[in-house]
């Protein structure tokens, strides 16, 4: 017992307990600070739901068991691939292959297919179907050269991607096996027994965080080229691939291989100049194939399916011939060092705080993909627009919309009937299937609008043809089917940013045609225009792709608009109110934004192709105005962010001078709002119940989730990545079915199929297991940016080079996902068409291109698809971060399009340039991050403008959540609850506080005892 009163013992114990107590107190505070991130990582929440026994299930699960759903989804992925894969050429009817064919599969990618991209949209492909398995199921056991397969699998050569975090372009590697290794391994001896088909797979991966290298400098580090096997261009053949093809074709020449078939396994279109150099018999573009899509590819090869996919990008022989290429990348402002501007590729880079060093100029205007090649081709044929020495044949391998079938289709009876109200046209065409089997076929309707003197005078550009309608049907063998397709007059308009400052419908002749692809369409229209105008065409200038021929005037129809119209399409009613459509992006156009002073640009114009073709990057310097209007990274001073916040308040929120009520006691629950209209006054009552802290937590702490709002019993949700399907793998969770890349989805030209997929993605979210009371209610997807060049790292997440097609596909996918009670965040809004410099890069364009090309996909999502939300992008429009761009976030999204749900940011962790104040004042609602360290809304609860803006943002978020399956809980109560990890720390902390106190008491007793003893 003496020891119990030993002073030394209690001193030691007190010290130890006190230290541990201090550590735990610190841990409690620090983890509290990172509460949102920890909850997201551990899938825990700080609330609990007290169930509502009377809750009505709003979104019932589909009537499939989990297993049946999984099987259905596997089949659906196959169907998407089966209808999206595009047959590019098929010499001497090489395909379909005989069922007893023996294959030698070539390239390391043949054993390691590309199933999807990397980054937030990445998928776990460990269980994906292999080419081996797919071919075996169609062509039978033993159809594959096993020696060659085993050789590749064990070769040690493997395609490498750039890392999403800390990655860069120079990390991409093709890593094809050098031919010397084939010979060394003796595998060439096996070819003869599997000589029916040499099946060559060429794959190129892409992903988040790094664009594909297009130039040797991408591989240069410290002045040394780290990899020169592709001449620095990742979309060209590497030296090893060329060598492999050379050898394969030698084996073909000596009779070892009968046929050589090529599969292009990439969402980024390879440069196809090599096709002319090699005697390849057939080629098929298959994109990224998703979990099971390769099964459908095998079925296409074996004739169990008939190809019907149409490419959604122009496939080029010279990728660098596109006018966007010279301006593809991130370019430094010339005074970047002086102003200490910084950049970041990822949020682990310190530059993510500023994100203001780089810019990119979309100098090509509207001339992306086929809009450039087909338009310049038409002008070349007619001798217009200083088209110069243009050679379509040298630049283009396969046009937009191209794709062959095993069947043959002919068109007739093309007819166009304008609707009486002038707002649409009924276009019809008879299609005959001349083949021996029923086959699906897509009819594509293109229009050509007049390029008038008004357009030239006002800088309005016109593409020679534009897709405006399509339909896909199965046609029985030998039968004729009539396609009737509605074309909206609205889609024929152009945006005139300089004259009328709204959408115009030029006076003049409009041509419609049914083309097998964009080039076929322009050839038809050239013939029709020539016939109509009695113009003689120089036939040597006409070029037809494959067997398409060089145009058929009978497949065209003319409609003449007698009067220039700048009124009919100048008003939007999508929001339920009449909103004038006018310029909203003058500050993103170097030629209109006054802040750039004399730094102007010449956009590419069909009025002078040669004279306006972009040749070099315009050097730009940051001016004082550019700094003050958005590039600033300072808080204080006349040109700091605080000053900018004040300007926003004055410009956009000056009427909001009364402080809205906050935290008022009330009985309304979030679920009650499902019965209310968006504009109902009851919303004001609901919002008044919410405290400022609840609002700012809801807005600011949204890293892959939404926060619960206890005052209105709104549950929290989990929001996860798409777009190939639910993937929580970025945050360590489970993933569901992964479908093909988005371009394959679009290439199906099959709305029903894409809608079916959307429904299944929604269902996967509904059924995903979670570790808390929250459910997966929101998807970060689909992606609706544009394939501005083939080199964008995330092309696999975007549909096409064509905005209109993107919008059509996005609309059906979004609508179907939301039907299952899952709200969307269509991403990345907007003009985020590259990865380089993505954190805060200034994107300069003009309003016509912005509206007609880059916003179309998102417009489809919101207006046609009823999409509840978007994800704003990392980049800036001009100098203004997209989420703080009032014209974009409010003018377009809310006023013109009528979006009612939430706009989330892209990942805002570390990126303090995504300022909360500027965002909410501009119309941004939710941040995919947490407030820690960048909580600029803190302490502003008495600021009427800020509080009003926060209320509006909160309303949008709540609107999304109440229209999701998260509300299947009905009127359940949301009560605070400590997550287990925080409870554990708190418990331990209390234990050590008590221990410290106890041991301190014992120490005191022992000191007293000791003193008494000494006395």
């Amino acid at each position, binding site marked *: 017992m003496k020891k119990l009163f030993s002073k030394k013992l209690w001193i030691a114990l007190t010290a130890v307990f006190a230290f541990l107590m201090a550590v735990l107190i610190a841990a409690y505070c620090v983890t509290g600070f990172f509460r949102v991130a920890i909850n997201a990582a551990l899938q825990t929440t700080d609330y609990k739901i007290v169930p509502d026994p009377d809750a009505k299930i709003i979104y019932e699960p589909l009537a499939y068991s989990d297993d049946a759903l999984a099987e259905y989804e596997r089949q659906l992925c196959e169907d998407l691939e089966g209808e999206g894969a595009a047959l590019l050429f098929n010499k001497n009817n090489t395909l379909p292959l005989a069922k007893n064919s023996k294959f030698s599969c070539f390239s390391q990618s043949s054993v390691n297919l590309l199933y999807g991209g990397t980054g937030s949209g990445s998928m776990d492909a460990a269980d994906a179907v292999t080419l*081996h398995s797919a071919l075996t199921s169609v062509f039978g056991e033993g159809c594959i050269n096993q020696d060659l*397969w085993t050789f590749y699998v064990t070769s040690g050569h*493997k395609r490498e991607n750039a890392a999403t975090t800390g990655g860069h372009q120079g990390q991409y590697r093709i890593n094809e096996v050098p031919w010397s290794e084939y010979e060394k391994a003796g595998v060439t001896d096996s070819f003869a027994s599997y000589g029916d088909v040499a099946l060559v797979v060429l794959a190129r991966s892409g992903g988040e965080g790094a664009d594909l290298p297009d130039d040797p400098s991408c591989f240069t580090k410290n002045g040394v080229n780290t990899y020169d096997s592709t001449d620095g261009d990742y979309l060209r053949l590497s030296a090893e691939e060329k060598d492999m093809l050379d050898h394969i074709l030698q084996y073909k020449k000596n009779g070892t291989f009968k046929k050589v078939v090529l599969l292009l396994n990439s969402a980024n279109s390879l440069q196809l100049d090599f096709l002319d150099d090699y005697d390849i018999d057939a080629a098929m573009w298959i994109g990224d194939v998703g979990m099971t899509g390769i099964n459908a590819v095998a079925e296409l090869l074996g004739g169990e399916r008939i190809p019907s996919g149409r490419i959604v990008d122009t496939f080029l022989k010279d990728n660098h011939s596109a006018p966007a290429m010279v301006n593809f*990348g991130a*370019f430094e402002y010339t005074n970047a060092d002086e102003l200490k501007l910084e950049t970041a590729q990822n949020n682990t880079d310190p530059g993510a705080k500023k994100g203001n060093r780089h810019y990119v100029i979309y100098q090509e205007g509207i001339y992306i993909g086929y809009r450039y090649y087909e338009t310049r081709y038409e002008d070349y044929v007619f001798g217009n627009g200083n088209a110069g020495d243009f050679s379509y044949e040298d630049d283009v391998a396969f046009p937009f919309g191209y794709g062959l079938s095993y069947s043959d289709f002919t068109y007739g009876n093309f007819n166009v009937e304008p609707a009486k109200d002038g707002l649409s046209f009924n276009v019809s065409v008879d299609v005959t299937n001349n083949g021996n089997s029923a086959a699906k076929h897509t009819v594509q309707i293109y229009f050509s609008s007049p390029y008038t003197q008004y357009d030239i005078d006002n800088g309005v550009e016109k593409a020679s043809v534009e897709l405006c309608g399509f339909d896909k049907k199965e046609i029985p063998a030998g039968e004729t089917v009539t396609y009737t397709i509605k074309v909206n007059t609205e889609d024929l308009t152009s945006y005139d940013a300089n004259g009328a400052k709204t959408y115009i419908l030029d006076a003049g002749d409009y041509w419609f045609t049914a083309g097998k692809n964009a080039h076929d369409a322009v050839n038809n229209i050239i013939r029709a225009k020539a016939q109509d105008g009695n113009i003689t065409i120089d036939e040597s200038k006409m070029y037809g792709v494959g067997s398409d021929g060089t145009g058929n005037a009978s497949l065209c129809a003319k409609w003449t608009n007698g009067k220039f119209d700048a009124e009919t399409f100048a008003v939007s009613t999508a929001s339920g109110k009449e909103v004038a459509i006018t310029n909203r992006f003058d500050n993103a156009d170097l030629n209109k934004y006054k802040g750039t002073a004399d730094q102007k640009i010449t956009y590419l114009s069909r009025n002078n192709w040669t004279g306006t073709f972009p040749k070099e990057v315009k050097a730009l310097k940051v001016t004082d105005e550019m700094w003050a209007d958005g590039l600033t990274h300072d808080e204080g001073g006349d040109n700091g962010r605080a000053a900018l916040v004040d300007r926003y308040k004055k410009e956009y929120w000056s009427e909001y001078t009364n402080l809205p009520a906050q935290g008022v006691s009330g009985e309304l629950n979030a679920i009650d709002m499902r019965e209310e209209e968006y504009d109902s006054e009851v919303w004001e009552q609901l919002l008044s119940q919410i405290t400022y802290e609840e609002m700012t937590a809801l807005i600011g702490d949204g890293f892959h989730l939404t926060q619960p709002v206890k005052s209105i019993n709104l549950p929290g949700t989990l929001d996860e990545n798409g777009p190939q399907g639910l993937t929580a793998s970025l*945050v360590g969770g489970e993933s569901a079915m992964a479908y093909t890349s988005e371009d394959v989805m679009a290439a199906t030209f099959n709305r029903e199929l894409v809608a079916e997929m959307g429904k299944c993605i929604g269902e996967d979210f509904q059924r995903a297991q979670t570790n808390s009371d929250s459910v997966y209610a929101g998807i970060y997807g689909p992606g609706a940016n544009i394939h501005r060049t083939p080199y964008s790292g995330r092309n696999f997440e975007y549909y096409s080079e064509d905005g209109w097609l993107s919008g059509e596909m996005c609309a059906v996918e979004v609508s179907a996902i939301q039907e299952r009670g899952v709200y969307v965040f269509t991403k990345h809004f907007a003009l985020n068409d590259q990865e380089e410099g993505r954190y805060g890069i200034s994107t300069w364009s003009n309003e016509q291109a912005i509206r007609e090309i880059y916003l179309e996909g998102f417009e489809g999502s919101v207006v046609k698809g009823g999409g509840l939300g978007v994800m704003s992008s990392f980049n800036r429009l001009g100098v203004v971060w997209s989420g703080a761009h009032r014209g974009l976030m409010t003018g377009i999204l809310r006023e013109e399009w009528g979006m009612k749900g939430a706009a989330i940011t892209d990942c805002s962790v*570390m990126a303090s340039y995504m300022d909360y104040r500027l965002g909410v004042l501009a119309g941004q609602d939710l941040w995919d991050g947490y407030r820690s360290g960048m909580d600029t809304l803190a302490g502003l609860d008495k600021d009427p403008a800020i509080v009003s803006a926060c209320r509006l943002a909160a309303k949008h978020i709540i609107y999304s959540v109440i229209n999701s399956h998260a509300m299947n809980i009905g009127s359940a109560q949301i009560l605070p609850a400590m997550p287990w990890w925080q409870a554990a720390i708190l418990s331990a902390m209390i234990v050590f506080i008590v221990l410290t106190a106890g041991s301190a008491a014992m120490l005191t007793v022992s000191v007293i005892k000791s003193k008494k003893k000494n006395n």
Partner: protein
Amino acid sequence: MKLKKLLLGFVVAILSVVSIAFAACSNNNNDKDDEKPGPVTISYQLGGVMDGEDLDSFSFAKGAFWLKLMSDGSVVMDRYSFGNYNKAPAAENKDYVQNYMQGEWEETTRDGVKALSIEIYMLNDAGIKTQTSSGTAYERNGTYTCSLRLEVVTGAGFYRSVEFSGGTTLYADADDFIQKNAKEFVAPESVATFTDEELGGTVYLQKDGKALIYNGYSLAASGTWANDGEGNMTLDIGDDKIEVTVDKQADTAKFSYKYSLYGSYSIDFTFTAKYSDIPVQKAAEVADNVYKGTYDGGQMAMSLTLTITDKTNATLVVTIMANYAPSFNCTYVLEDGVITLTCDSADGNAKMVWDGLPHTWRLNDADHSMTAVVSDSGEQA
């Protein structure tokens, strides 16, 4: 006496509660293992490493992984965070985590090739698998290889593909695993250092005027430094101009630096050094053999750095944009301060750049600048 008993009871009760709590919270995998009948041995073991320059700022995230495929079909993966340079034995090494991840494996035949199918994951509180990663290991010359996707820092959400390789033997035990993957911290070369011993920070002042601030072994920030030897010393770190307080009498130099991670969690370092140890350093001093210049190639301003490597060779780096800076290995002739460069090796785009550049430059040794020499006709030579 009552008080004594009361206190004793209190201590015993508290310690019991703590013991029970700790026991309950401890990893129960070991208990499970104990319950399994028969000895479980390692059938295959593979190792992988997560490393790279881009992790220099997160040295603690660098790690070695030991994937053990056990005879009962389970997988145990240990992690050793070698970036903390802790070589202590496994039993006392806080940077070694046993059972970092778990999983299952089986021998399989995939597409006609014998292989090992591996799945690893963590189990969360509800028993749901998280951080799942799976791969197929194929054998070549006795070595199995596969890729697994691992999180860089647990819970942070960033993943890397890590290549694993191994066979039936690799490491004898955990200590062997640590020792074979341990690294020596190689401090950056420096002419002087500041330290904050309490918080584990070091600032390395380098000969070329660079200053590197380390938080432990992680590069926290870099900048430039200058010292006039008269007690005036500056450090430029990003936008911050840091004033160094010099007390010549006490022979100390001192400054404060706030290291901020994710803009929130921060460490307030106070760095000190012996002032007399710090050499004189001119601001942004340029090396003797390096010259810098600019050239306006039409709309694009280029910055050039010429490094004279020996009597006949030089390297010219032309920075045209952030991600495009071709480098030219040249021979040169230098007469009266005018250098003429020749480069035959440039091709492709680089050749276009080279052809568009002046090749004759006047070198100014005073400020190490270089200016293009213009001929009488106004053409740049």
